[in-house]
């Protein structure tokens, strides 16, 4: 089942109004979609919402779906900001377009890549998905900067995130390449890590830019 973009947006707004702001219903006019919009029919068809006396109500059946759409929206926001470094209005706008692509398991992948974030850039909670619960149950740290590793912990390099091309090349010359095994030997006063049979020392700023998974 895949909802149209407009239907998803209506469901989102309704979910936020009901679940987070404690309202009972929503006036279609405040959403900007008139009540005769076909999207409402699409949603009532799935029994997610109900339209009574010109007002829109969220049905119990629509709660789960609403939660998932808002989750995708806020994950998209995080993705824009944390990874793609697009901020402000432009970021919000793009997030709105992007969220619709995050269904059918893609959201779980993005969520894992972002290391199961709990809040969106605006500080609102991101409803946890199945992947988040699983990660928590396993104690899986996900992908974290090397600075979050404990001494002696072993992992795999996931990616390097740096704006500076020279830094990137330097790290790559040291064998810091995605897919390579890495062991953090020590974290203070400098970070020492081992790749293959070589040990390297780096400072915190460089360590922050190496992302590793356990």
């Amino acid at each position, binding site marked *: 089942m895949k909802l149209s973009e407009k239907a998803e947006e209506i469901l989102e707004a309704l979910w936020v109004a009901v679940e987070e702001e404690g309202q009972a219903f929503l006036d279609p006019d405040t959403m900007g979609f008139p009540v005769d919009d076909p999207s409402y029919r699409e949603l009532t068809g799935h029994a997610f919402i109900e339209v009574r006396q010109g007002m829109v109500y969220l049905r119990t059946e629509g709660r789960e779906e609403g939660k998932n759409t808002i989750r995708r929206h806020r994950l998209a926001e995080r993705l824009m900001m944390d990874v793609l470094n697009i901020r402000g209005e432009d970021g919000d706008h793009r997030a709105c377009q992007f969220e619709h692509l995050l269904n059918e398991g893609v959201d779980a992948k993005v969520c894992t890549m972002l290391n199961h974030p709990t809040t969106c850039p605006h500080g609102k909670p991101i409803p946890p998905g199945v992947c988040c619960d699983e990660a928590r149950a396993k104690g899986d740290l996900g992908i974290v900067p090397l600075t979050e590793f404990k001494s002696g912990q072993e992992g795999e390099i996931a990616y*390097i995130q740096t704006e500076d*091309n*020279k*830094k*990137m*090349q*330097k*790290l*790559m*010359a*040291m*064998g810091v*390449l*995605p*897919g*390579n095994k890495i062991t953090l*030997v*020590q974290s*203070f*006063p*400098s970070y*020492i890590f081992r*790749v*293959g*049979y*070589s*040990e*390297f*020392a*780096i*400072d915190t*700023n*460089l360590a922050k830019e190496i992302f590793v998974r356990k």
Partner: protein
Amino acid sequence: MATCCDKRSEIPHNSDNIKRVALVGNPNVGKSVLFNALTGAYVTVSNYPGTSVEVSRGNASIDGETWQVIDTPGMYSIHTITEEERVAREILLNESPDVVLHVLDARNLERMLAMTIQLIEAGLPVVLVVNIMDEAERMGLTIDLDLLQQRLGIPVIGAATARKRGLDEIRRAVLDYRRGTPGHFAYSRLLEKDIALVTQHMSGSYILSRKSLALLLLQQDEEITALFKQWDREGYAELAEKVREIAFERRESFHLDLSLERKDIVRKLIKDVIVAPEKRVITWAERVSTLAVRPVTGIPLLLIVLYFGLYKFVGQFGAGTVVDFLEKRLFEALFNPWITGVVKAIIPWAIIQELFVGEYGIITLGIRYAVGIILPIVATFFIFFSFLEDTGYFPRLALLVDRLFKYIGLTGRAVIPMVLGFGCDTMATMVTRTLETTRERIIATLLLALAIPCSAQLGVILGLLSKAPGALMVWGVCMLLLFIVVGLLASKIMPGESPMFYMELPPMRMPQLGNVLTKTYTRMQWYFMEILPLFILASVLLWLGKVTGFFEKMIEAMTPVMASIGLPKETAVAFIFGFFRRDYGAAGLYDLQSKGLMNARQLTVAAVTLTLFIPCIAQFMVMKNERGWKTASAIGVFVSLFAYGSGFLLNKLLLLTGMLA
């Protein structure tokens, strides 16, 4: 540096019919050891990555054939980032060696083979030397060199050059080298297509293969881009356009993609070549290493090293026992009276006698200072330093102090020049070129010029001040304080971004006595070549000054300056000495003190001022060479004013508080 010849025809290729072999490879894989073994010459070998900052050349006779061997600074990739790497690549670009020996570390075969691939791809005559086999074996690694050779299509030799293993095979491989058909390493279809699009626009025949050059261009290598501008004058615009287009298309991750593709090629290459043991073998060296890098054990270890190495060995043994013996027993009691008698018997003129054996005589002053005082101190320091260097302790010290050094605008990397500065500031200033940014280099040069006393000076000052209780403490606190204050200020004032710290930690090793001694010897040799002429020159100038009366006038002229910082006018002599070498000046103070001309306060003020004061001529010349006239002069003027100002304030402070009265 980046001035290359513009056409391949102008390359000085085999002009004298001597064949060339170039050693290339990552830092700290034993290129210099191999160089020494092949040539019988000596370049400094150490267990510290990036020690060879210059290209060394020597001749080797292999089966009666003379070969020129070229040792290059370490490089990680043919696409260069640092200055040393550029220097190394220049050799490949400009001198078209007949054989390129790629030396790598067996333990890190997988990581380092990426460069072998690049060298082969560039069409260079590569012979691979898999070095440090002994340590790899000790770790339980087995390497199938035959299989590797088969896959690479170039000669592959296993060696442990530090143990003289594999040397004959290397010589033979160099001698027998015939250009075969090395392996072809294909990238992904997409990348190969991009390479083809670039090479299409190349028209000349180049020193490296087109494929290799295309990749360098796509990596936005500035030097290669500049070269192409000269090589392909007409076709350049089109080529540049194509490169720009592809580079833009792949801007997101070209470097990463390329590295990953090479990693993949290497992974396939070494499949079944390396067999690693199930469990990591932890050697004793690793245990020592752990002790050295943990703050809890590392700091006590550092203190122990400093106490026994610097204080006991250099300070008490070198500057105490040995100096006493040489200077007092040998020179003052025996040699000087004897030589004075001899000279006086041969030369009848008093003035000329003065030149050799007078108060400032070449022999009685110049040689006595150089051999009696400076030599033992510097020698013990260099033994200490070379020993530590070979253990691999310095990179560990670097990471231990990195956080602190960041405050003064430096990184842990600066630990080597700073420690070396306690031996000889001139040599240390030269080594500052291993630092990454100009900003770091200038700050390090300044601190060396100002606040780091060299061993000779240190030895004399320690001896001098230890007789006045408290004086040594005041001097030490002053130096440390000024070092920190100037460092903090410099890091605030100097423009530029804060540097980053990264360093390979070579395994810790038990130093080989022979290597430590040879290294000490070459350093001593360099030092003496540098200082002995200056000592003699100083003696001659001082003699001239005395004979002509100019000296007297100068002391007179400096008297008010000396007086303003509370020093007797005789100290002017020490300061004039200090202009030639700081240690020479300190030795001058030593003389004054033994004559009982100074009290504790004056001694301390003089010692502080002189330590801070203008670097010796040799150091100034190196500063000029490394940093340029402008920076060197600016540092010189600043240091002079700062030294005087500090002396002035310290004197006032001591008078006011009545300390050391």
